[in-house]
């Protein structure tokens, strides 16, 4: 057991995969000489060389598409898009190509590309560097979408994504890169099929993922002090989502609060809420509540930025409300 940061866990996976399989390479803006905008690939250029740690021009559509093309001919590319905000320039490639090629070709080709991108607010980077577009990608059949919240998942899910024959998009919340966590020795393999019960509870289910897990877990601890036993689900894999675990938990607690940094309207939390209403309606003792992003482009000043994304206190308040406690 050793303590590593989320960033180091990502780097562990990059190194391990590149040592294990020469088809793996990393491509993106400033992944090489600069060391990665979030320093995930620091030092890898020296270790693996320019061909495999490949700096690209500022051409998101071009290099994401190139990653897809390389995957078509048997490579295992890891494409780093600096932030999810820039990935909008590559949406055509990800949605029109990566997600469709297998289907359009009647199953003849597959696209084992891994696309990593940072996501989320919290660093005062304002409205063009702070958004959470998980909802865009989870909307698309053909993509797998991951949202690691722990160091074990940061490493393990990247490795599992490389073993996956289909295109995988990984969201790394920018607020997590410095987070430390325990990495067991040897580091464990993880699956891409299950949500994780991060904390067991009986009174209310708090459903979250990625960057919101910490605040949600804090909320659960605070709720415990008030005698409310909150179960916390770390969804991990946003698509295809492990609905069984969600429904089982709701069947136990009869109450659900969804915590997601993306905007509430038409967002990721909307889908989770709708599914619970559709498939777990008769289990509910209270309306589903959502703690989600406020409908505003993320502002620069820290007090406004924090007010626009879920806070621990809001999670507590929502949980208390559905539990019916004051």
């Amino acid at each position, binding site marked *: 057991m050793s303590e590593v940061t989320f960033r180091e866990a990502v780097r562990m996976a990059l190194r391990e995969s590149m040592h294990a399989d020469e088809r793996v390479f990393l491509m993106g803006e400033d992944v090489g000489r600069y060391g990665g905008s979030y320093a995930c690939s620091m030092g890898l250029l020296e270790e693996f060389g320019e061909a495999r740690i490949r700096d690209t021009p500022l051409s998101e*559509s*071009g290099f994401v598409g190139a990653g*897809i093309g390389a995957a*078509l*001919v048997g490579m295992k590319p890891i494409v780093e898009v600096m932030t999810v905000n820039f990935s909008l320039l590559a949406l055509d490639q990800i949605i029109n190509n990566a997600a469709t090629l297998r*289907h*359009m070709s*009647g199953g*003849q080709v597959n696209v084992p590309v891994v696309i990593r991108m940072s996501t989320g607010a919290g660093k005062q980077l304002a409205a063009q560097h702070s958004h959470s577009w998980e909802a865009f990608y989870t909307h698309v059949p*053909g993509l797998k979408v991951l949202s690691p919240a722990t160091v074990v998942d940061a490493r393990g899910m990247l490795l599992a994504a490389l073993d996956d024959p289909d295109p995988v998009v990984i969201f790394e919340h920018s607020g997590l890169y410095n987070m430390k966590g325990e990495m067991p020795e040897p580091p464990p393999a993880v699956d891409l099929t299950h949500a994780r019960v991060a904390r067991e509870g009986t009174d209310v289910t708090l459903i979250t993922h990625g960057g919101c897990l910490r605040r949600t877990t804090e909320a659960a601890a605070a709720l415990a002090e008030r005698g409310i036993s909150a179960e916390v689900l770390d969804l991990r894999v946003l698509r295809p989502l492990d609905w069984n675990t969600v429904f089982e938990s709701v069947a136990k607690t009869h109450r659900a609060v969804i915590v997601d940094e993306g905007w509430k309207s038409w967002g990721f939390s909307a889908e989770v809420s709708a599914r619970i209403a559709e498939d777990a309606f008769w289990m509910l003792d209270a309306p589903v509540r959502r703690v989600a992003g406020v409908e505003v482009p993320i502002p620069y000043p820290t007090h406004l930025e924090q007010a626009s994304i879920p806070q621990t206190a809001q999670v507590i308040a929502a949980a208390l409300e559905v539990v019916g406690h004051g």
Partner: protein
Amino acid sequence: MTALPGRGHALHLLTQMVRIRRFEERCAELYSAGKIRGFLHLYIGEEAVATGALRALGPDDALLCTYREHGHALVRGVPMNKVMAEMFGKQEGCSRGRGGSMHLFDAEHRLYGGNAIVAGHLPLAVGMGLGDQMAGRQRVTACFFGEGAIAEGEFHESMNLAALWKLPVLFACENNGYAMGTALARSESQTALTVKAASYGMPAVSVDGMDVVAVETETRAIVDAIRAGGGPAFIEYKTYRFRAHSMFDAELYRDKAEVDEHRKRDPIPSFLRRMIAANTLTEEDLAHIEAKVAEELSEAVAFAEAGTWEPIEELTRDVYTEVGA
């Protein structure tokens, strides 16, 4: 002046062009009859491009095309039966019926579509070239696109990446003068496409796309250079489509006279005339080819008619490699 082909070679070129022409004429008919639906973009008038250019590629080279790709699929060797079944949407089609006219795929023949986002497949070609380069394979990826794609950002991103990394990619521009209904001069500040391409530091040539012999000769020279490690290259085929952009197009954007003028340069009769003049082919050869193609075509239509619809229970297959979403 390029050398004229010998008899066997000439027969091949003529046969391929006739196959495309007759196949597409029948498609137009079947479309009107409701057998083929969706969009149908015909290649009639442009047959010399696919026919000549694809002869310059080896079987290991990869091919990416636009949604006007029936001709490329047929010349590449995808059986006409499977292409027609795909047009019908039958599961015996080359893409299991999932793609239709715009998305003909055949992994065995390294045909990677049938891509219907203009310029969207150019980055893919770059990546395929990158994969080949990294793996040390001597393959070329040929990417066909219309001149409309040149206005897209993805064209420029892809040209830059391929040139920067010296990738074995052929950028093959089929310039038929119109992006749907927009003439080149109405959409491009610089209509000399080779000038744009050359700015990326790669070889760029232009060739008469109505002359199948010139197409083949120029393409072969440029593909050989790419294969030899020269990095990417750009080739423009100046061509013309005789039919509308798609079946549902009133052609308000061009004169009938303009079309008639281009029809005089129809690649099939003009090639035949040259071959007859050179005593390489005869009128009887054409008649023989027509008869064979008619037979192939009627078999293809029968095959497509007899094809089956994929059961609805299989609707969500091939979304992921494992079944289920």
